[in-house]
């Protein structure tokens, strides 16, 4: 397993995928408080109305909400693409030599999950910390930031990790990575829609983003249920990706 983890780390660094995730998340983290601070001035200059500008709440809480919203919309899409792209890259004939050397495809998927899952969750927590701390410098409002950083960061991080896994799953089923990204993203957003109409919203991973918007610094019963369900979903997806790849002709080039 150590050689597989080494390979994934090398790939993440040399193909600059880990940097891309980091720049994306930290970029949003630092931009959110700045945008929040500048929003009333922008609105005033555009509309010429002080009332409209004054009606927009400008505080740390709203800044963190804005960060979570942006991440939900854009980072989700990019992480689905990352997952789909990674599987497309592997199945595009690159597994021929490793498989004959004895590679276990399930072990390879687990190594990817460990390395990228760790990077996604870790970087999201850092980004959440960065947006809160930077927001405290720029905006009014203060809470006990450590618990918020911990819980909100973890909720967003696990949700993004699920998005990455859905991308991988779509990539293992569809050879074209762009099509896999589109279908993976649609599935994820559809899941969010369905979750909103049920009384068991907490069984879906999308509930993590709903909780993240509340900015609560402690655990609740539905949140813990959602964590456990998401872990179960992720485990199932990891197995499904390995199962599907084992039945895929990996000698075919990407269309």
């Amino acid at each position: 397993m150590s050689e597989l983890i080494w390979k994934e780390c090398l790939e993440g660094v040399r193909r600059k995928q880990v940097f891309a995730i980091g720049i994306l998340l930290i970029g949003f983290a630092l931009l959110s408080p700045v945008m929040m601070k500048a929003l009333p001035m922008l609105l005033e200059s555009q509309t010429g109305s002080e009332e409209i500008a004054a009606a927009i709440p400008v505080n740390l809480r709203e800044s963190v909400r804005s960060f979570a919203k942006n991440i939900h919309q854009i980072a989700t899409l990019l992480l689905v693409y990352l997952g789909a792209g990674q599987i497309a890259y592997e199945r595009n004939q690159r597994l021929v030599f490793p498989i004959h050397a004895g590679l276990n495809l399930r072990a390879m998927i687990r190594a990817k999950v460990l390395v990228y899952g760790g990077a996604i969750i870790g970087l999201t927590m850092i980004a959440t910390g960065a947006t809160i701390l930077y927001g405290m410098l720029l905006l009014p409002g203060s809470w006990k930031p450590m618990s918020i950083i911990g819980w909100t960061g973890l909720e967003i991080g696990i949700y993004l990790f699920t998005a990455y896994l859905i991308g991988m799953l779509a990539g293992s089923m569809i050879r074209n990575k762009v099509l896999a990204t589109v279908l993976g993203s649609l599935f994820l957003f559809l899941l969010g829609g369905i979750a909103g109409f049920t009384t068991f919203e907490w069984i879906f991973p999308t509930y993590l983003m709903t909780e993240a918007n509340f900015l609560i610094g402690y655990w609740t019963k539905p949140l813990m249920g959602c964590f456990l369900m998401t872990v179960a979903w992720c485990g199932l997806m990891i197995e499904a990706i390995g199962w599907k790849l084992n039945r895929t002709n990996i000698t075919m080039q990407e269309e």
Partner: protein
Amino acid sequence: MIRVDGLEKEFGSFLALKGLNFHVPKGRVHGFLGHNGAGKTTTLNILAGFSPYGKGSVQIDGMEVRDAKQAVQRKIGYLPEAPQFYEYMRAKELLMYLGRIQKASKLDAGKRAEELLRLVGLESASKRKVGGFSRGMKQRLGMACALVHDPALLLLDEPTSALDPEGRREVLEMIKKLKEAGKTILISTHILSDVERVCDSVTMIKNGTCILDADIAALKEIQGPAGYRIEFVRAIKEAELHDLQSTACISELICEEESCLVKASNEDSEVSLLLAKALSELKIPFHGIQRQERTLEELYIRRMNGYE
């Protein structure tokens, strides 16, 4: 080592392999020939355990591929026509990674990587990233990757097609060395002179079926006496040569516009003289008559065009 019986493979409604049969004994270098789309790569992918198949049996070292895929794959080294690599890795890193997958220690994997890089002539490029390699270098590296786990059977899909003449000669020498080391090698290629240089036996396929499966040495004997190529001064119609065919020494005549290939019925040294005399009598102007030894290329073209 390889036994393929009645192999069929479908892609939707298209039957790519139609009851293919051939076998390759242990320690042999076997050529696998056929035109584009004949089913060569499909067959190699099935042998390598990457593509499922319908009817028929495919055995590697006595094991049915569909029943013991992983055990079969460990016995095989497969070099695809255009091998793909992790471009961000250096050549030695890649070979060490493959070595480490099969549970070799870091030290052993490093030694094996150096040994293989020396074998394929890439030791000076061991620290270069694979993404910057030329196609020929990638082909050599692919050969090294296929050999990492010391497989008993090597499947090579067009191994010399991307190489310059020197590179081609080196790869053919490498194949000879591997044969001496006891490996069984199946080469799919279009370069018939390569097959003649290194192969012991050959299988020709056309439209998914085997049209020839024989030893190279036996083939030349089966083909009988050599042929003669007549170069005409102008383009000649087949009808004009009708009377020439009645000449006693000709068993077959194949016309190709300004030349024709005459298959002699015996090895008589007088054949060219008899042909020259007959052409003069028919008043057909010609530049010359050249004796042609039997080549695999000739046999290939004849078989593929349905002359035999």
